[in-house]
């Protein structure tokens, strides 16, 4: 990671209203991995080659789940002619984790062109994963042509609006948000008034000590607005979460891992299981990045998240498919 890349994020004035005191940042680029723990507001990070001992309190938790993202089933261009194969490799990786995850989050772009057979293929492949429950939010590729009707029919049971919802697991409150609908010309991802009102109401009754995990497709922080990598009204959403001691935001969309910690909020983007995209501003466009075939799996991956009760900490571990 070059100094220049760091600077781009530091100077990313995204008007998100987040208190920048105590600003901490950790970025893990595709092809590498990082293990980050926040304890009492202090970030500890380890490289994947120096992970905590298995069985230590950092590695174990009350709750373990996996995030996968951007499977883009149906994509068949040179950047990855076999996205089904790499999704299967991701499932193998998940099934090989030492602490079996309880469930999976899929942060969108399940399909490439919103075709029924693309969703069917993903459903079929994910059936072989040990965790049986999968919680989805849509990416922009999942709501093409029909304003998300098919997505809602398949994955949105019990959700509100365009597919947002929340649920609780072992004391952790999970919120799935949708920021890929009704995008405006020249703009970024959008949550919209109705969803923001719902979010405010959803978290109002929770204790400040409740760990919060928010997941959505497009990053809820301004990674690189020039490429549309951010969400217009994320500041409002984050304002409703300010009172909580531990907030973890999990996103996809940018096909590379990246982390940032601001105050009580840890932002994290997952790698794609399909193809990598360039680092912000490092190419003419955010189109698929072609890497030599033998390197492909090193730039794809999954994200494993562990929550240790009483530690105020969620540990986020990225692993490549290599």
């Amino acid at each position, binding site marked *: 990671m070059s100094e220049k890349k760091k600077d781009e994020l530091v100077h990313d004035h995204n008007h998100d209203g987040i208190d920048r005191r105590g600003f901490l940042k950790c970025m893990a680029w595709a092809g590498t991995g990082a293990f980050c723990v926040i304890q009492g507001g202090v970030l500890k990070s380890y490289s994947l080659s120096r992970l905590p001992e298995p069985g230590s309190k950092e590695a174990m938790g009350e709750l373990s789940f996996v995030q996968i993202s951007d499977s883009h089933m149906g*994509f068949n*261009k*040179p*950047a990855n002619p076999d996205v089904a194969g790499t999704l299967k490799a991701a499932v193998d990786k998940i099934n090989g984790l030492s602490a079996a995850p309880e469930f999976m989050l899929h942060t969108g772009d399940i399909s*490439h*062109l*919103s075709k029924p057979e693309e969703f069917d293929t993903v459903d079929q492949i994910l059936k072989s994963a040990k965790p049986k429950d999968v919680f989805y939010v849509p990416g*922009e*590729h999942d709501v*093409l*042509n029909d304003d998300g009707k098919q997505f809602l029919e398949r994955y949105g049971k019990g959700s509100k609006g365009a597919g947002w919802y929340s649920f609780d697991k072992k004391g952790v409150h999970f919120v799935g948000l949708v920021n890929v609908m009704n*995008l*405006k*010309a*020249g*703009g*970024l991802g959008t949550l919209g008034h109705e969803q923001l009102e719902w979010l405010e109401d959803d978290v109002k009754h929770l204790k400040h000590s409740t760990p919060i995990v928010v997941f959505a497709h497009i990053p809820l922080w301004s990674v690189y*607005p*020039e*490429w*549309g990598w951010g969400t217009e009204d994320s500041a409002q959403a984050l304002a409703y979460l300010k009172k909580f001691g531990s907030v973890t935001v999990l996103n996809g969309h940018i096909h590379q891992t990246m982390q940032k910690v601001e105050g009580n909020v840890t932002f994290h983007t997952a790698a794609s299981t399909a193809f990598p995209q360039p680092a912000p501003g490092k190419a*003419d*466009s*955010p*189109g*698929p990045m072609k890497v030599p075939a033998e390197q492909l799996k090193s730039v794809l991956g999954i994200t494993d998240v562990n929550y240790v009760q009483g530690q105020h900490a969620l540990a986020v571990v990225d692993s490549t498919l290599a």
Partner: protein
Amino acid sequence: MRRSVSIAGLAAALVLGTLGFGTGRKSYVASAQEKTSTTEVKIDNFSFGPVTLTVPVGATVTWTNRDDIPHTVVSTDDAKTFKSKVLDTDEKFSFTFSKAGTYPYFCSIHPKMTAKVIVQ
């Protein structure tokens, strides 16, 4: 060889048709021809090219997606004067502009992609 000639002939017929040949308004067509060297918009690297396209009233504009990623062509106005379905690689969308005006549009999947057609 025969095949390429016939394709060229077809293409010429299409271009001439677009410009209104055969309607008997030859003077109009001549000036229109000068204004519109192209009625094609190419989608490359997450951008529309040309960003501003000027065409005469009645012109048909064709967009071609040359990216590895799908895009759309959607007019920005509330009425959505024109709206393509999603265009995968090499797919095309055409729209005939029958009224003068400025038509801003964008890709509804990647809204940072914006451009406009000016119809004179």
